[in-house]
C-alpha cells in the first residue's frame, strides 16, 4: 500500500511515522505540504507535530496547505486517511472530522503512556481489532481534549464513530483514566464511513517492544489492511 505522509512546516513526527508504517509493510513516503498531486497514493497519514507552529489554533493554518485538497479528494474517494495527534487536529479544522480539540483540562502538556479501549471497529484503524481490546499508547499533546456538540457527539457514539476511549487497566472509560478532559473519554474518532480517523495518542511511538509497547502496530496494521475493504 502506498501511503503519503504530508509534511507541513513544523511537523515533527514524519520520520517516526514513516518508520512505523514501513514496519507494517506499507510503502510510506514523505510529501511536502505544497504538493498538489497524490494520485499514486492509496492512503494518507497526517503525522504529529506543530504544523505552522500551531499558531492561532492547531491545524488552522495547515488546513489551507495545497496538499489538503488532495487529502480531501482521497477521503471522498473512500481511501483511508488517518490523522495522528496534530494530524487529528488538522482533520478537524479541515472539516473532515467533526468536533474540535481544546486545551487539556489541566492546561498542561501531557507526555505519557495511556490506556485505550477499542469501542468500535467501524473505522479503518480498529477494523482488525476486537471490541474491548485494551491498548497502551503514548499521548503527547497540549490540545488533546476532544469536544463536539452534545447532540453531534451522541450521534457519533450511536454510529460507532467514537472508536477508542481512554480507559483504566480493566478497559473501563472512567473519569480518572481520562487524561485531558475529552468528551466521553474519546481518544480516536472516525467519520461516518470509517475511512477517515483521528487518533490523539501516537501509534507510531508504540511499535516496538524496546520502546515500551508495540500496541500501536495493531492500529497501523489495521490501517494498511483496510485498503482491501473500502
Amino acid at each position, binding site marked *: 500500500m502506498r501511503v503519503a505522509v504530508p509534511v507541513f*512546516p*513544523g511537523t*515533527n*513526527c514524519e*520520520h*517516526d511515522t514513516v*518508520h*512505523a508504517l514501513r514496519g507494517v509493510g506499507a510503502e510510506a513516503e514523505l510529501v511536502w505540504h505544497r504538493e498538489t498531486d497524490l494520485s499514486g497514493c492509496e492512503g494518507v497519514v497526517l503525522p504529529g*507535530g*506543530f504544523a*505552522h*507552529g*500551531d*499558531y492561532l489554533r492547531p491545524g488552522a493554518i495547515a488546513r489551507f496547505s495545497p496538499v489538503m485538497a488532495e487529502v480531501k479528494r482521497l477521503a471522498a474517494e473512500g481511501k483511508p486517511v488517518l490523522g495522528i495527534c496534530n494530524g487529528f487536529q488538522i482533520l478537524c479544522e479541515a472539516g473532515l472530522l467533526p468536533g474540535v480539540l481544546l486545551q487539556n483540562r489541566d*492546561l*498542561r*502538556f*501531557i*507526555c*505519557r503512556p495511556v490506556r485505550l479501549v477499542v469501542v468500535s471497529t467501524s473505522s479503518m484503524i480498529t477494523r482488525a481489532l476486537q471490541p474491548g481490546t485494551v491498548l497502551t499508547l*503514548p499521548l*503527547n499533546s*497540549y490540545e488533546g481534549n476532544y469536544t463536539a456538540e452534545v447532540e453531534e457527539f451522541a450521534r457519533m457514539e450511536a454510529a460507532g464513530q467514537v472508536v477508542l476511549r481512554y480507559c483504566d487497566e480493566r478497559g473501563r472509560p472512567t473519569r480518572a483514566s481520562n487524561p485531558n478532559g475529552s468528551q466521553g473519554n474519546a481518544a480516536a474518532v472516525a467519520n461516518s464511513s470509517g475511512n477517515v480517523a483521528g487518533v490523539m495518542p*501516537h501509534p*507510531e*511511538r508504540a*511499535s*516496538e517492544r*524496546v*520502546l515500551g509497547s508495540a500496541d500501536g502496530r495493531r492500529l497501523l496494521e489495521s490501517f494498511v489492511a483496510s485498503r482491501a475493504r473500502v
Partner: protein
Amino acid sequence: MTDEEYGSVCTILGREPRPPELAMYSVMWSEHCSYKSSRHHLRRLPTEAPWVVVGPGENAGVVDLGDGWLAALRIESHNHPSFVEPYQGAATGVGGIIRDVFTMGARPVALWDQIRFGSLDDPLARYLFAGVVGGIGGYGNAVGVPTVGGEVDFDATYAGNPLVNVMCLGLLRRDQLLLGTAGEPGSVAVLLGNATGRDGIGGASVLASASFAETSGSKRPAVQVGDPFEEKKLIEACLELFSRGWVTGVQDLGAAGLSCATAEPAGRAGTGIDVDLDRVHVREPGLTAPELLMSESQERMMAFVPPGRVEEVLAAAARWEIEASVVGTVTAGETLRVFHQGELVAEVPAASLTEDAPVYQRPLGEPWWLEDLWSNTISFVQPPEMGSVLLGMLDDPSLADPSWVYRQYDHMLFLNTVVGPGGDASLIRIRGTEKGLAVSTDGNGRICHLDPRRGAARLVYEAALNVALSGATPLAVVDNLNFGNPEKSEIMWQFSETIDGIAEACLGLEIPVVGGNVSFYNETDGRDIYPTPVIGLLGLVEPVPPTVPRLHRGRAGMELWLLGEPRAINLAGSAFEKITFGHVGGRPSAPDAAAGRAAVALAADLARSQLVPVLHDVSEGGLAVAIAEICIASGVGATVDYADWRHLFSEDPHRFVAVVAPADGDRLQAAAARHEVVATRLGVLEADRLHFRGPTTTASVALASAARAWRGALPSRMGERVP
C-alpha cells in the same frame, strides 16, 4: 566597558571607536562572550583524548563514536533571562543550545534541562518554576527535539536567582562536520532565518554580565521571544544545505548577534569580512547600525557559501519557507568592515574582537567562612525518628518524583529513547547501529558550597557512574559553571577550585572536557548563589544490552545489595541534614579516583551482564532514598538491616545498589571482587513496607505512604496554577 578596556580599543584602532565599533567591542568583550574572568582558569581543564574530534572553542564539542558516527554536545545557561521572563527565557535558552549543536552539522536529537529555584513555598519560585518548565516544553516539544532528562533542585540560595541550564546532543556522520569558519576570501555570508528586530539589544553584556540588581527595570533589554516554528524550519533548511555541500562554514547568531557571527568566523579563518547592514532582513524599520550589530533576535544563522552556490542556497531557503539575505563577503586581509546606508561605519581587525579581548586574573581568596562551615557539624545525641525523616525526605521537592516536570516534555520523539527521564541516565539508541548513548547531568550546589573542589569532582564521578549503570563507558564531559560575582575573591576562588575538581576527576576517569559555559554574576542584592557547576556526561554503550537495568524491575524475593563502601557516615552537605534540620555544614568526603573508576567499571559490567534487573546509584538522600525509589517504582516493599543509622543517609560517592535474584548473589559478589569493590547484602524486597532495622532504631513506613509522599510532592505544591 571599563576605561581601561576602552583604552585598549583605542590602541587597537589607533583612534577613538565610532558608535557601531564601540557597540561591537562592548558586547564581544563582555564577560558572557569573552570569558575574560574565566578563560585563564578554563585552560586547566583536560580537553584531549583520541576520540575528541572538536574540543572547546567551537559551538559544540564533538566526539567520535566509531563507524563514522560523531556526537555533538553542548550545555548553556539562560539564568538571567529566565528570571526576567521565565517562559520566554527558558524557551530561548532551548532555541540557542539547539542552534549551537546543528551549527556543527549535527541533527539535534535530545535535550536535558537542569533547573534550580528557591523553595516552592514561595509563590515567586512556583511562578518561575511553572514558567520555565512551560518554556522548555513549549519550545522543545514544538521544535521537535525531545527532552529526555534533566534535574530539578530547590534551595533558598536560588530564590533571587534561578538557574536554567540546557544541554543538547546532536548526531552526525563524520563527513557532515562543519565548523564556524568563514572560509576562503570571496565566500558569501548568507543570513538565514528570522528577521532582525530590536530584541535583546545588549542582552549578552547587560543581562548575563552584570549582577541582577544592577539591571533591574528599564535598563533591561526587551524580552526575546522564541519561535520554535521558525527554528524547526531553520534546522531542516540548514541540514539540507549542509548535506548538499553548499556551505563551508556556519555560525549561529546568539549573544552579540551579527557582531559575533561575523567576527568569530572571520577570526577563525584568519580573513576579513565586509558586512552590508542594509541587506539584513528586518522586522521593523529604522534600526541603527549598533542595533543591527547587537540585536539578539532569535532563530538566525549565518552560512558561509562559495559564490557559485548562492543561488542554490537562496532557492533552498525559499523552499523551506525561511527568509535569507546575502549580507557580506569574506575578504583577504583581516579587517571586518561594516557598511550602513552606503557608508563605512566600522572598520576593525576581525580577530581583535575575540582574540584581543581582555583576560583578567582576578584575585582569589579562600572564603573566610569556610573553616567555620567545616567545623559546623551536628552531633547527634540520639538518632532521629527514622520513619518521619524518610517520609520528609521523599516529600522534599528536590528528591521527589520529577514526573510533574518531564510529563510536560515530549521525551519520545524520534523513537530512540530506550530509557527516558526518571532513571539515573537517559539512554538514546542510534537506529541502524548497535550503539547507544547514555547521558547524565548532575549538579549539587550544597556540597560545592561546602567544598567546591571535592564537590565538583564528585559530580563528575556521579555522572560517570550514572551512565555506567546503563552499561556505558564514559566518553566526554561538558560543564556549565554557574557562579556568583567574579569580582569577589571568594567567588573566583570557588571557581578556580571547581575547575581543579573537574580536572582531577576527568583525569581520574581519563575523559576530556569538550565544552561548557560559564555564567557569572548569579547574585541578587549582594547575595551570591552557591557555586553550582553542572556536569553533563556522555557515555557510549555498544551493543545496547537487550534489557537495560531499570528501577521498576524489582520483584518480591529479590535481594538488595550495596556495591561500594558500606560504612560511610559522612553527612556533610547531605539532603538528610538539610531537609531534616535545615543544616548545611561540615566537610564533604573527598572522591577517590581508584574507587571511582572501579565503581564505574563494575556498574558497566553488571549492566551489560543481564544479571541484575535493577541498578541505582546512591546519591542525594543516601541509601534510604535510593532503596525507597526502587521499591516505589517496583511496587514492592523491602526489609533492610543496618549497623549505624547514618549509613542510610550518607552520600559518600562511588556507591550503588543492585537488585538480584537470590540465586545470583554469588555471581554478583564474584563480579564485585573482580573489580575490588565491596559487595554487601542489605536485605530483601518483600511485602508492602519499607522496613529498615538497626541495633537501636527502626523505621517502618508503608510503601503506599512513601509512594504518596514521593509522587505528590511536586503536584501538591504546584496545584495552584500561577499563569
